[in-house]
């Protein structure tokens, strides 16, 4: 059975309506599957980061679900080192070892300050000119992450995302963020979170956002943060659900024969339906699928309860998947060329900052931000300068985000060429019109001369209009010349 909150979506469209496809194509899904006007991949998995927490711990300390990263750190500080049910608590648990998921955690925080107007405007880089969206937002991100690490699990810098799972599951951690599909890990038999203790919500937002002109942080208000909400003390905040890594997709090789291509597309469509129950696993086995729901039809609570997952928790999970994937302010992961290098830079610089000593021998958050900017810009310019580069990074970025191509090397040249072409065309048109008018005037003058019985100078031809003088002067000159010759 699909619950009412899900049915409210299906009532608004008919799968057979001719307009439905167009609408889908213009939706946020476009940003994951499309390049320019083509659909180049078939989504199989709706990967999105969610906030997971232990309800019993937050309740015991009279804490509410954080709506901003500052509140996340307040929750972490409040419980860190406290004892709950005989266990010493960590306020937060995020595996932060270099080379794992540090760039995703960083982008989750950063995007809450930089992504306010949807995927078309970018979150790590501006889609206008490829400038890094860092500035005070990155400085603040580094500070937030350093603060949360203070209240983190003792082994955070030695482990990957298994820390996010194990520490929450064994009841020693209050909160974390993780991919949606990890719900099945948190809700499986044996977890300390069973019995209604597993809480799931959207990842926290931010009450401050980046002003892209000044690169400084400014407070949210109702206009600047339309996709967030208000905190309990009335502050507006921005929320940007993050499709970290982008989920799994199916793509078909464009260079195979048509029969193979068609069959491969059918396979992609088949997998996307998610119709193989075994692939979803169940609450009592170790088979837990990495395939998150990506379809309305997969937001089916009964599918999960039949496999042993709790009903209320499942509803919370599916509701948050739906909210995140339907957000108009969803953050799409980078798919541009050089993306792995850009993300690796964010990972390594963040890791270095978080593990550095708090003294003057270490780079400040502002200095780390500057090195991130410089490294990113270098990576991008190096790529653009390679002879094998088909399109500059900015142009690819804009095509992927469905925004008009402007400002790149190639794009800039195209724009200049169009402007020059238009000006030259207008000039040519003007010259032709002037010549036509002069020919018309000359013909009229010749007819007048003939009417008056005057002799028309033999050299007075249509080509005479090219001579730089008025028609009257031209006739006078030619007449005089003819008279002299006679």
């Amino acid at each position, binding site marked *: 059975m699909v619950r009412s909150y899900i049915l409210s*979506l*299906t009532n608004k*469209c008919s799968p057979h309506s001719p307009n*439905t496809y167009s*609408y889908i194509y213009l939706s946020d*899904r476009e940003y*994951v599957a499309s*390049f320019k006007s*083509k*659909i*180049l*991949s*078939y*989504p199989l998995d709706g990967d999105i980061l969610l906030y997971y927490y232990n309800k019993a711990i937050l309740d015991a300390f009279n804490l509410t679900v954080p709506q901003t990263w500052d509140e996340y750190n307040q929750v972490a500080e409040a419980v860190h080192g406290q004892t709950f049910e005989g266990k010493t608590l960590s306020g937060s648990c995020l595996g932060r070892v270099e080379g794992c998921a540090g760039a995703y955690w960083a982008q989750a925080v950063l995007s809450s300050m930089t992504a306010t107007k949807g995927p078309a405007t970018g979150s790590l880089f501006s889609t206008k000119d490829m400038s890094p969206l860092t500035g005070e937002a990155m400085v603040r991100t580094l500070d937030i992450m350093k603060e949360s690490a203070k209240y983190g699990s003792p082994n955070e810098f030695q482990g990957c995302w298994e820390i996010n799972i194990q520490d929450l599951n064994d009841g020693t951690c209050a909160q974390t963020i993780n991919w949606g599909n990890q719900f099945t890990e948190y809700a499986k038999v044996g977890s300390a979170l069973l019995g209604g203790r597993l809480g799931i919500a959207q990842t926290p937002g931010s009450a401050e956002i980046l002003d892209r002109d000044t690169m400084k942080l400014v407070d949210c208000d109702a206009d600047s943060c339309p996709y967030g909400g208000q905190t309990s003390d009335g502050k507006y905040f921005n929320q940007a659900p993050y499709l970290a*890594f*982008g989920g*799994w*997709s199916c*793509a*078909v*090789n*464009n*260079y*195979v024969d048509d*029969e*193979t*291509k068609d*069959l*491969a*597309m*059918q*396979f*992609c*469509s*088949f*997998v996307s339906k998610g*119709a193989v129950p075994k*692939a979803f696993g169940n609450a009592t086995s170790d088979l837990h*699928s*990495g395939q998150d*729901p*990506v*379809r*309305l*039809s997969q937001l089916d609570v009964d599918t999960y309860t039949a496999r042993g997952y709790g009903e209320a928790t499942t509803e919370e999970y599916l509701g948050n*998947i739906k909210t995140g*994937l*339907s957000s108009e302010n969803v953050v799409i*992961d*980078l*798919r541009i*060329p050089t*993306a*792995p290098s850009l993300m690796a830079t964010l990972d390594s610089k963040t890791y270095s900052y978080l593990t550095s000593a708090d003294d003057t021998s270490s780079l400040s958050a502002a200095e780390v931000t500057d090195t991130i900017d410089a490294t990113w810009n270098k990576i991008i310019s190096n790529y653009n300068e390679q002879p*094998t580069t*088909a*399109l500059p*990074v900015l142009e690819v*970025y804009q095509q*992927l985000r469905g925004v008009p191509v402007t400002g790149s090397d190639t794009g800039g040249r195209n724009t200049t060429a169009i402007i020059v072409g238009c000006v030259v065309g207008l000039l040519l048109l003007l010259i032709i019109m002037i010549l036509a008018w002069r020919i018309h005037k000359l013909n009229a003058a010749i007819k007048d001369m003939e009417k008056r019985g005057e002799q028309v100078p033999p050299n007075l031809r249509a080509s005479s209009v090219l001579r730089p003088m008025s028609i009257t002067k031209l006739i006078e000159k030619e007449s005089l010349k003819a008279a002299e010759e006679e």
Partner: protein
Amino acid sequence: MATPNAAATKLLFLTNSICDWIPPYIAAFEEAMGGKDRVEISLITYDSGDPFGDLFKTIESEARTQGTLFSGYVTPPSPMGDVAPLDGWADFTSFIQDGRAEDWVDILPACE
């Protein structure tokens, strides 16, 4: 010993070991299409070294060389920016508009 069926249409997909939920779909699809006599799908899986890096590099290399070794890929969409300018991936638009993939409208955010 089973003999290979030359008449079957063969597909070769590439992915990595993180995507461990794909094999059940292959068996189910082959069955839905009339069995291995009609369609046979093989899967190559990168499972050591850098599973994502290797996957992305191979996908880009196929597009750059216009190779036809793989019929398709199960991958995060990350390589799209490298592959799309090279025309390496087929366009699903006609397939979807022709009603071959009616379930497309079910994909979130669907019809809000």
